[in-house]
């Protein structure tokens, strides 16, 4: 029998209270199965692929390497929370669309959350810096070229219209 705990987390601005969270469930599985936010993807479940990257209190983290109970009282941003509204994309997302930054889209949630933090800290990066920033995110489709172009383009767009 696994122990359960009550937790409160804020995800994409919405507060969720859950009374019975198994202490051994990962934050990733909690986000997907309990909250139903399946945009956060799981590629490896042991911290290698970066697909499950979320922002925890504004800092990127691999949600497969955290327990849901550890997020109690914290704020989380998942890929669903990046766009400003239902019918408008974030400039980072627009840049991905316009530069072929995705094919199957499996790695995309992790790429977007990782780059969101990165471009906030480094609004005018070099190509090499972008490549290092996404070095913890594996993409099996694009060969990364489109993703790097998208990130550089996004940086330009975000500098032009600061959030």
């Amino acid at each position: 029998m696994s122990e359960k705990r009550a937790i409160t987390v804020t995800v994409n601005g919405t507060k969720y209270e859950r009374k019975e969270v198994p202490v051994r469930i990962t934050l990733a599985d909690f986000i997907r199965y309990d909250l139903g936010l399946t945009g956060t993807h799981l590629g490896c479940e042991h911290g290698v692929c970066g697909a499950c990257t979320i922002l925890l209190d504004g800092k990127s983290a691999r949600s497969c390497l955290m327990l849901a109970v550890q997020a109690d009282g914290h704020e989380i941003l998942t890929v669903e929370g990046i766009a400003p509204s239902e019918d408008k994309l974030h400039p980072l997302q627009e840049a991905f669309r316009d530069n072929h930054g995705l094919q199957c889209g499996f790695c995309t949630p992790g790429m977007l959350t990782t780059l969101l933090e990165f471009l906030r800290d480094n609004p005018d990066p070099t190509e090499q810096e972008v490549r290092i920033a996404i070095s913890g995110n594996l993409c099996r489709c694009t060969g990364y070229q489109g993703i790097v172009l998208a990130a550089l383009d996004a940086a330009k767009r975000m500098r032009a219209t600061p959030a």
Partner: protein
Amino acid sequence: MKPPPFQYHDPKTVAEAVGLLGTLDNAKLLAGGQSLMPMLNMRFVLPDHVIDLNRVDGLSYIKENGGTLEIGAMTRQRDVEFSDLVRAKCPLLHQAIMHIGHRQTRNRGTIGGSLCHLDPAAELVSVAMAMDATVVVSGPNGQREIKFADFPAGYLTPSIELNEIVTAVRLPLWPAGHKSAFVEFSRRHGDFAIVSAAALLAIDGGKIARASVTIGGVAVAPVRATDVEKQITGQAPSSDLFRKACESCRSIEAMSDIHASADYRQHLAAVLSRRALEKAAGLAENAPWNRKH
């Protein structure tokens, strides 16, 4: 659900955590989770109790105390990476941090967690060895200090008791103006190093007054290349001197695994220790291997 069933504890103080360790059987401490969580997800470890240190107060800090840099065990690698104090006083630590994993893992990974996990290729473990660090440990009988040279007891095993917790690491600082470099060879950026080398040099009047050379990834714990240190101390730094001295690294006892043979590790030890020294001494500005990261 991937991790096996366990009871979860989140103590608020070190004393509480030590108390739990003393009463619970088969307990694991959870720090940043960048090593333990994968091991739980893959069920390589099956603890009955997980004691989470993330809500323990007072273990996250970086401070300087009379020539020593003290870093709390739960200080995130990210905080070390962005610390002006670390950059100014202990550049080797900053240089090494940049080789650890990725932003997402450094945001969570801690100093104490890395030191206790004691991966043979871990950058922080090498830095602790290179700097002659001291580990501060709390147990039921209070605090004690362990010299880092005595800290590794074997593969992935620190020499602390089951009811003790590492609370901080102390790094005796080198004099202002000292030189340092950290280089490593890995297959991809952010991967575990196959071999790494850390070099510290204090240069006085054109001569090396003091040297520290550490090779990581060759044995179960990083080793100091004391032969190299002896050969170069008192000499004027030059590529030729370093090349000759570092040949002695080929006789360091090395392990063999799926990533590299012992021979290859010894070869890397000789090459990387030379490169680290050249880089520290400012002799590698135009070297083809010295790409800016």
